[in-house]
């Protein structure tokens, strides 16, 4: 969102409550509403590659939960016999599905959070309390691409075959083996990388072709890693000097960023306070939660059209509203 600025602390509060709600609500109407609205929000914010990555990890997990729960959990009043006396329960299936949905919602909420609040805003909140730690984080963020590019250079260098480059393809491929057998193994003399633990077990391992290949790979990786690490450590000594030269530690630090509470922040806080208040009253009355075990007490005909459900929807709407408003403004 470009056209409205919301204080990072307000965001933090809002999303934190959302995560809690994701755990609390078990009424399918509430859960599905939550899921739909958060999906709308995410699609408005744009789907990031992180989300895809996280989904890849969590989809198998939720499928596993859905399958395992009925198999392992036999409580529940409604039994479904699959064969002879092996049964699963209707409650366990419902529970597995609801659990997976809750999991999905939590992931989506966090994904949306990552889109709304950038790391600078997040660090801004910390930097007041933990100035050094947040400085370390900023520096680490600066070093990561640098170290990454160094690692790539080191890795490239590793492709250089000093000896026995593949020569003119047409006429090569002779007597390579004999040369190889005579050749000394560089790694044997490498004091940095230890692989010569003498024991029968190790020898046996090494004689296996696949393991030998893995060991070789590991050595290469180790060398790339080692050079990158020592190089980076060495260079960063200048970073420390440059920080000192520019007065780090001279006095208490301030920040060039400032986030002020604006009208939008107050409005959002008011909205959160009112809706959450209503929702909590509802929760205390049991609205939004259902009992699953021992017997599921939910029926689809119990439509939740009441003030609590309305408050729940309103609670989830403000960001969606702002995103849509932004689109309209851009269009004009």
């Amino acid at each position, binding site marked *: 969102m470009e056209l409205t600025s919301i204080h990072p602390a307000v965001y933090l509060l809002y999303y934190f409550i959302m995560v*809690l709600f994701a*755990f*609390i609500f*078990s009424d399918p109407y509430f859960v599905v509403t939550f899921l739909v609205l958060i999906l709308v929000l995410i699609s408005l914010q744009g789907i990031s590659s*992180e989300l895809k990555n*996280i989904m890849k990890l969590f989809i198998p997990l939720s499928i*596993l*939960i859905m399958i*395992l*729960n009925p198999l*392992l*959990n*036999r409580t529940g009043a409604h039994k479904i016999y699959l064969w002879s006396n092996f049964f699963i329960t209707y409650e366990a299936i419902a529970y597995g599905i609801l*659990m997976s949905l*809750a*999991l999905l919602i*939590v992931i989506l909420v*966090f994904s949306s*959070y*990552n889109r709304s609040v950038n*790391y600078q805003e997040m660090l801004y909140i910390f930097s007041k*309390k*933990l100035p*050094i*730690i947040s400085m*370390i*984080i900023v*520096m*680490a*963020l600066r*070093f*990561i691409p*640098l*170290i*990454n590019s160094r*690692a790539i250079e080191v890795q490239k260098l590793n492709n250089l075959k000093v000896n026995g480059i593949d020569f003119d393809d047409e006429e090569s491929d002779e007597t390579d083996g004999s040369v190889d057998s005579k050749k000394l193994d560089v790694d044997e003399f490498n004091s*940095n*990388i*230890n692989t010569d*633990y003498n024991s029968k077990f190790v020898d046996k391992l090494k004689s296996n072709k696949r393991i030998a290949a893995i060991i070789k790979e*590991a*050595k290469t*990786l*180790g060398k790339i*890693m*080692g050079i*990158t*690490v*020592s190089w*980076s*450590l*060495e260079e*960063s*000594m200048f*970073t*420390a000097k440059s*920080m000192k030269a520019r007065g780090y530690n001279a006095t208490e630090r301030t920040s060039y960023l400032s986030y002020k509470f604006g009208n939008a922040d107050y409005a959002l806080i008011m909205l959160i306070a009112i809706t959450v208040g209503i929702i909590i009253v509802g929760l205390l009355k049991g609205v939004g*939660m259902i009992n*699953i*075990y021992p017997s599921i007490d939910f029926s689809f005909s119990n439509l939740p059209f009441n003030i609590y459900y309305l408050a729940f929807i309103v609670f989830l709407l403000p960001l969606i509203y702002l995103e849509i408003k932004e689109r309209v403004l851009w269009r004009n």
Partner: protein
Amino acid sequence: MSAMDQMLSNMTASGNGIVNSQLFSITMIIFLILFLVGLFYAIFKMYEQKKPPVESIVLIAVLTALATVGRIILMSIPAVNLASFIIIMVGVVFGKEEGFIVGALTAFVSGLFMGMGYWVLFQMLAWGLMGASAGFLASRFDNVGFRIVFGLLWGFLYGWITDISAIFYSGTALEITPIIALYLNGVSYDLTHGVTNAVLLVVLYDWFKKMFTRAKVKYLSGNQSESESISLSD
């Protein structure tokens, strides 16, 4: 099959008997989060209160960045986790506090890259404890056997600690299903992670110890100029 069956159904039955209150689990969640946030805050604050020199700050930042790169570079093979090795080595050479901080911050910073979520808190805990425990046991590390056991063990411990977040998925705190699901999901991951740790601790331990020790001496010995040679051979 039937014996296993019986056992499991007994376990879950007794589990269900105890809790049926969602409020209980919500309170647990809030307490857990507050506890973790408080723990990290306390440890970070302890470090800040020592007024660490600039060199120490830069060192922690670089080590954190190195560990994070070690994780991100191999994101395609998620279980091969170079970060753990670096964190353990930091603990061994620089001490438990640095180990914990580098571990916790590595999780946090990778979270900034790969997506923040509640799981980051548990990764922070797991990696922080990994670094700190390596610091506590630093004197034992010259023994190869110990290193192998340590590396393997932490492969699994890391998995188990991060899986505590399973509590979040269950309406009832002691529900067993999600936990089992998570462990089944993670066994091969944990094993690979542990084996990677062990292999790296066997193969690269000496080199990295030398390297880190050199950095430690050079950083903390103050302002020696680069043009002047300081021989720091171990």
